[in-house]
């Protein structure tokens, strides 16, 4: 019933109307300006107090030693020097990168595959879509992280299942080589939400293009590589950016599965978990701010890189 409007929301380009269209009475303008400033009071306060001031404050704190009880002490680049020599910092960088690089492509791969299977002329679409989507809805909750602890525990579901097959299970969460993998599985399990976005994207590809390709003698594979994939690249790009940024900020799952430690042997020490430990467990707020800034710069750089590279593979219909 509202899908058309919704589609427009997405499609609506960034359009700015001319400040004073020819026939609009100009005497309204002052009144509009005054009204706008009243409408924007909450936003202005929020931007100032919740975003801008904290942003600069954390930049300042990044160059200080601050434990919340004593006033911050300026230490210059000391926090960053410390980072370079900090094994836990490097461990958390590695854990986060491995997690992003492995789980995001796997998750999006599953999402795309299932979206393609569900796309055309299959009965029961709504049922499958809901069933696949459900884990996405619950996936970031503490409850599911607790479930995951028990699934991969020594006596957990996975090892019982392997036992039925006569395979000796593994101590998944105690073994530094496998603990991160359990969290990757958890992220892949939540492929439903990108899948729903893919399905919506596939729906937008006009049937005429497939018909035309068929007339030109294209088989199923050529239709896929020459019609589906190119027209879907903006959606793939959108999902990629979204899931990458999300994966960089994973916290709940890592905190619950490792009991807040990031163990065993730092194997689930996600970057945000390390920021939390330094800031809110050790109350080393200066160092934590420096860590947070590195994360922000990294996310900005990676997002910018995505956008740069996108020119070469993302195809927008109008060019």
């Amino acid at each position: 019933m509202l899908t058309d409007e919704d589609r427009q929301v997405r499609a609506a380009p960034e359009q700015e109307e001319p400040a004073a269209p020819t026939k609009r009475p100009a005497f309204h303008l002052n009144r509009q300006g005054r009204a706008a400033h009243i409408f924007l009071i909450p936003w202005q306060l929020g931007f100032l107090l919740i975003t801008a001031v904290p942003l600069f404050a954390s930049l300042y704190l990044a160059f200080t030693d601050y434990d919340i009880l004593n006033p911050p002490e300026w230490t210059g680049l000391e926090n960053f020097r410390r980072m370079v020599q900090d094994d836990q910092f490097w461990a958390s960088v590695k854990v986060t990168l491995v997690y992003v690089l492995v789980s995001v492509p796997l998750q999006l791969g599953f999402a795309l595959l299932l979206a393609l299977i569900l796309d055309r002329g299959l009965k029961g679409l709504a049922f499958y879509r809901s069933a696949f989507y459900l884990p996405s809805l619950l996936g970031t909750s503490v409850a599911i992280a607790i479930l995951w602890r028990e699934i991969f525990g020594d006596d957990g579901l996975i090892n019982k299942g392997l036992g039925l097959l006569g395979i000796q299970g593994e101590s998944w969460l105690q073994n530094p080589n496998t603990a991160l993998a359990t969290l990757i599985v958890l992220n892949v399990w939540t492929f439903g939400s990108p899948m729903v976005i893919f399905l919506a994207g596939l729906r937008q590809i006009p049937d005429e293009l497939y018909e035309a390709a068929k007339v030109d003698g294209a088989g199923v594979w050529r239709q896929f590589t020459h019609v589906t994939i190119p027209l879907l690249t903006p959606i793939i790009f959108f999902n990629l950016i979204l899931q990458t940024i999300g994966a960089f900020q994973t916290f709940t799952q890592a905190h619950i599965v490792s009991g807040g430690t990031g163990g065993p042997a730092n194997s689930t020490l996600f970057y945000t978990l390390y920021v939390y430990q330094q800031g809110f467990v050790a109350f080393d707020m200066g160092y934590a701010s420096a860590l947070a800034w590195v994360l922000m710069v990294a996310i900005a750089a990676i997002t910018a890189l995505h956008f740069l590279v996108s020119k070469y593979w993302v195809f927008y219909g109008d060019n």
Partner: protein
Amino acid sequence: MTTTTDHPTTAAAAVSSPPPTRERRIKAALKHTGLLVFVAFMVYPLVWMVVSAFKPADQILTEPGIVPTELTLDNFKDGWHALNRPFSVFFANSLLVTLGSIVGNLFSCSLTAYALARLQFRMRKVYFAITLASVMLPFHVLVIPQYIFFSQFGLVNTYWPLLIPKFLATDAFFVFLMVQFIRTLPRELDRAAWIDGAGPFLTFWYVILPLMRPALVTTTIFTFIWTWNDFFVPLIYLTRTQAFTVPVALNSMVDSETQSGVGMLFAMSLLSLLPILVFFAFAQKYLIRGIATTGLK
């Protein structure tokens, strides 16, 4: 929902699926079998949790099957009182925070979006650019000064640090969503209202806000789910048991977990998911549409 419609919905679909032959039917049956096996595989952990919550605690890890031999409510009874406050306190806290956040986001984001989308003023483009940029700002870079700020006002262990940002339009994504939505509404409506003598406030309240319903519904749904599930912010600000929201309470149960505690953990985890599951059952259509059009999850 129309899970089993026999009619292809578009003419084009009719073209691409000719009348079913035997071969086609077999193919479809295989596809469905494969998909159902996959669904079962994906949903098994959830079903296991549900069943385990009702099993006697000592059977949960010894019998991993999903057909229980014995059912009990002990896990719920024990889990409810496993911390030094009953879970009703945590549910009430979560409800308060969630409802407050929804009201806050609806109020502040719609006001902001209306001004940015419809009113003429000097800083408009700059403000909109700032809103867009702050969508991408990682929360972790702001949280430390925010914490210092709120703790200096003595607001740790209150809900103000969780609610104030919502009333100040800091969930920039919703502002952006609403701006894009308002832009699809015809300008003539505003002009007609202005000619009838309504100012910006009346126009917003009587013309724009009622038409924004789809965007408001999406905002409500996602604010509900995110706030209900949120763990990081409550974990930082709420350190006294009495103030815990449900996720923080669950975390605290994990910390004190013993082998016999798995049943209680599952029971309380299940209860914590219940509002979302009920919500999913009712708002499924809007939820899926919201994701498909906005990319929120």
